[in-house]
């Protein structure tokens, strides 16, 4: 129990350190470092996000159609798909996939840099590793995950996902699909809340992955443990905070 609280305290101190370093002291934000990280964190996750989005949309359309058609309400498929993706499935699934793909990779990378003394090396070259290594990665996560969430949602709803199954295969009217969705999905109430969720998830995944990597035991075993913990803790964080956020943003409790 004491180790749990020790971890909690240390991770909050780490977060404060990270946030304090976000303010650029020298004035020049290192844009090249940031774009590099967005490339490796965001772009490298693109394939898994796109493919998953397509399949989730397809399944959603199939199940939604089967239920709706018994009430003769299959024209409302767009509403079901649109709301469930934008409000819940988009942010949550993208967050979980991102934690598995990019979060674990970040923890392993930082952990290995610790194990191979690269972080000590930076400190001894009078370079602040928090500013140099962690801040660009944290910002890259904060930027990438909301964008990936948007891409995931578009893929799930769009022509390759739910639209393909619902409209092209099962025969829902295309005009009804889009117009009902447009009428039901509110920009502020639904889309923006989804964005807020994905920002919160990005914050959590970035914090957890970097913390686990930075404090990983400098052995191969320690790095392995850091990646596992990153995925487990981020997933729990995402699912738990998602419930709280839904209750806060959409009310109903």
């Amino acid at each position, binding site marked *: 129990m004491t180790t749990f609280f020790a971890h909690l305290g240390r991770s909050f101190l780490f977060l404060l350190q990270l946030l304090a370093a976000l303010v650029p002291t020298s004035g020049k934000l290192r844009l090249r470092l940031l774009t590099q990280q967005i490339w490796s964190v965001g772009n490298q996750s693109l394939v898994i996000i796109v493919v998953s989005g397509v399949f989730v949309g397809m399944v959603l359309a199939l199940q939604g159609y089967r239920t709706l058609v018994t009430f003769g309400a299959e024209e409302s498929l767009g509403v079901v798909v649109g709301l469930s993706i934008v409000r819940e499935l988009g942010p949550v699934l993208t967050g979980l996939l991102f934690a598995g793909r990019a979060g674990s990779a970040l923890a392993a990378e930082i952990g290995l*840099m610790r194990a*191979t*003394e*690269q972080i*000590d*090396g*930076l*400190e*001894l*070259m*009078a*370079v*602040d590793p928090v500013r140099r290594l962690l801040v660009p990665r944290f910002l890259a996560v904060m930027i990438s995950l909301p964008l990936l969430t948007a891409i995931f949602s578009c893929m799930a709803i769009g022509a390759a996902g739910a639209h393909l199954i619902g409209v092209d295969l099962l025969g829902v009217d295309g005009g009804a699909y889009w117009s009902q969705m447009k009428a039901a999905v509110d920009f502020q109430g639904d889309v923006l809340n989804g964005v807020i969720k994905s920002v919160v998830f990005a914050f959590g995944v970035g914090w957890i992955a970097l913390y686990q990597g930075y404090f990983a035991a400098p052995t191969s075993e320690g790095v392995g443990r850091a990646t596992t913990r990153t995925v487990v803790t981020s997933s729990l964080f995402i699912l738990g905070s998602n419930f709280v956020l839904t209750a806060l943003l959409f009310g109903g409790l």
Partner: protein
Amino acid sequence: MSGNLVTVRDVHFYRGKRPIYSGVDIDIRRGKITAILGPSGTGKTTLLRLISGQLKASQGSVEFDGKNVSQLSRSGLFELRKRLGMLFQTGALLTDLTVFDNVAYPLREHSGKSEKEIFKIVLDKLEAVGLRNARDLMPSELSGGMARRVALARAIALGPDLVMYDEPFTGQDPISMGVLIKLIRSVNDDLGITSVVVSHDVDEVLSIADYAYIVADGKVICQGDSDTLRASQSEWVQQFLNGKADGPVSFHFPGPSYQDDLAAEGIA
């Protein structure tokens, strides 16, 4: 330029409750190669970290060029570290940069020089370690010995006052060992840098050290130049220097004797 660059006085250091150092005095004289010898796990690397200010002594003082390291602020520490070069056991090169960029890294971070000047300095340093033509390789393409030489070029890029070597000879074949010994000597003499070598490779270290300390059980057991050490009366020092399997440091892990163990099971 004489006297001590680094003065360690009565340093105590604990890891958890376990004492690593209990009252250590070490002088590192300017322009000399000082060796710190000792068995594995006696905290030789810890000593380097105390000098670089990555760790703070629980008691006693570490002075670098007259400044007390443990009282420096974070920015003061970073200023101090610009005057320090450190060679890690693994080299600690940044794996995503080429050899050239690794050596250029501290220059780009701190020197404020133009790319042209940096190119010249990096080439000079790589030439000094014999790897000028390897400048476009990635660290993963280097052998262990080459990685250490690149790390040495990086450590001296900013023209430091002190270079610290952490186990530079571990796991090296005889040729790269010889190269490293020659480099440590030539870097020290040609560039007028003070060197500290931490190691347990007794013969190699004593062949270049001007002065050596043997550290064990949290204390300095013996000090002097290599002749003084070899002439030491201490059995422990003799066992350590000559690598005898048995002596004051027992071959057997301490505990009940073999006969007692058998007798306890009713076998003997």
